[in-house]
């Protein structure tokens, strides 16, 4: 997947106003046949699998014993005892190993299908109309975070109403040998343009979605990242004890959003200062095409995270004034339209 096709800002705006297709084939998919409880799968993931209706998805985490995030994943419940896990590209091997180690041996089948399954994301307020013409009216019935099988190009493919842009959107899972045909079919509609990794990053950042490896990793927990709504504390899971301990102790740092006073953008690894003291580093940052200013995220010392707090972002000869703001930066997305 290229960084850009015709330019990041154009692709970004086109996704917010029309519809764009993203080549997301680099991401990994695992198929798991297992009973959620007896296989331990429910313990490996932070979402409650038992209560998940069929053909719905959940965003959640695999944690280590210290509650550090091994990966953020999307869980698909295909059948009562059949699941698909969509994982990040760079963490694929570690994720697979973690699952293999912690899943029960009996009556469990774990398969990495990443090399045969391709993924395209269709995102933007017009994505539903575009997809109805290709996959049929069944698309209209898909609720947010639900999926189904649809007949496309003579194959039965999974389409879920999910995405990473804050807009109404869908993710399409298709066999490798059909993906180019599907890509071209989507682009036949003049409302659809291709968008690259650059726009994917600015779109997700504007809605405050974390990027694994930058904003969250094995050393951060869902608590500091402000992602506890994807962790079910009523069930047992790997990392739960560590989370409870941290909750009692209190947090030293928290993932915060900030906005600059100019068009200057925070960037990954810029240092963050308040009252002449270093209080954190930028984990993600960019120019925001929708807001016309710089936006970023980073972990700040907990006592300096109030909305409106003035901070300074620094790298060598670059010095940018910014303010802590609410997440998300951009609130006008068509996500739940």
């Amino acid at each position, binding site marked *: 997947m290229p960084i850009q096709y015709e*330019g990041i800002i154009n692709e970004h705006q086109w996704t917010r106003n029309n519809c764009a297709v993203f080549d997301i084939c680099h991401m990994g998919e695992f198929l798991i046949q297992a009973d959620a409880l007896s296989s331990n799968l429910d313990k490996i993931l932070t979402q409650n699998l038992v209560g998940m209706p069929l053909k719905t998805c959940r965003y959640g985490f695999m944690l280590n014993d210290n509650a550090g995030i091994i990966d953020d994943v999307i869980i698909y419940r295909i059948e009562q005892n059949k699941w698909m896990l969509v994982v990040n590209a760079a963490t694929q091997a570690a994720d697979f190993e973690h699952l293999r180690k912690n899943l029960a041996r009996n009556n469990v089948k774990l398969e990495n299908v990443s090399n045969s399954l391709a993924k395209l994301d269709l995102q933007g307020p017009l994505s539903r109309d575009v997809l109805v013409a290709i996959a049929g009216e069944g698309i209209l019935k898909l609720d947010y975070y639900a999926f189904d099988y649809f007949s496309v190009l003579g194959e039965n493919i999974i389409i879920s109403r999910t995405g990473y842009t804050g807009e109404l959107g869908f993710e399409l899972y298709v066999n490798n040998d059909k993906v180019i045909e599907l890509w071209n079919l989507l682009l036949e509609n003049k409302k659809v343009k291709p968008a690259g990794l650059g726009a994917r990053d600015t779109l997700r950042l504007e809605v405050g979605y974390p990027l694994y490896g930058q904003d969250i990793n094995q050393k951060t927990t869902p608590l500091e990242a402000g992602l506890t709504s994807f962790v079910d504390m009523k069930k047992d899971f790997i990392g739960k004890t560590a989370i409870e301990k941290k909750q009692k102790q209190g947090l030293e740092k928290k993932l915060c959003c900030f906005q600059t006073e*100019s068009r*200057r953008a925070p*960037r990954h690894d810029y240092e963050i200062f308040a009252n002449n003291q270093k209080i954190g580093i930028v984990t993600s940052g960019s*120019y925001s095409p929708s807001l016309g200013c710089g936006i970023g995220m980073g972990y700040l010392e907990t006592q300096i995270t109030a909305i409106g707090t003035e901070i300074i972002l620094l*790298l060598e000869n*670059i010095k940018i004034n910014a303010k802590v703001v609410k997440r998300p930066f951009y609130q006008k997305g068509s996500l739940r339209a």
Partner: protein
Amino acid sequence: MNVPEGLFYTKEHEWVKIDGNLAKMGISDHAQHELGDITFVELPALHVQCKQFKQIAIIESVKAASDVYAPLSGKISAVNKQVVANPELVNQSPYDQGWLLVIELTEESQLANLMDAETYKNYLKENL
């Protein structure tokens, strides 16, 4: 990539147009293309001294923040306020409306350290 004749170029992809003892400069078509959508330009104050190949301005694109280096030593005698207000001019018109600043030269012999259009074209080919 557009590499106009009659200009001089640096290895860091700045261009210079010499007019008497004044040197107007900007970044090359190749540079603006590599940076992608330019969102911010920081230029020096007037009358500041600059040194050949030392940082003199900053350009930010959606992708990254990049230093711009002075192609020649001298004193800043003009800056383009248009590109500060409309940074996309650097993308749209790198050699014309997207110029960055003018340097009043102090050491004209430094021109020998720059490339002409032909040499810069070859330099781009070799480094692609």
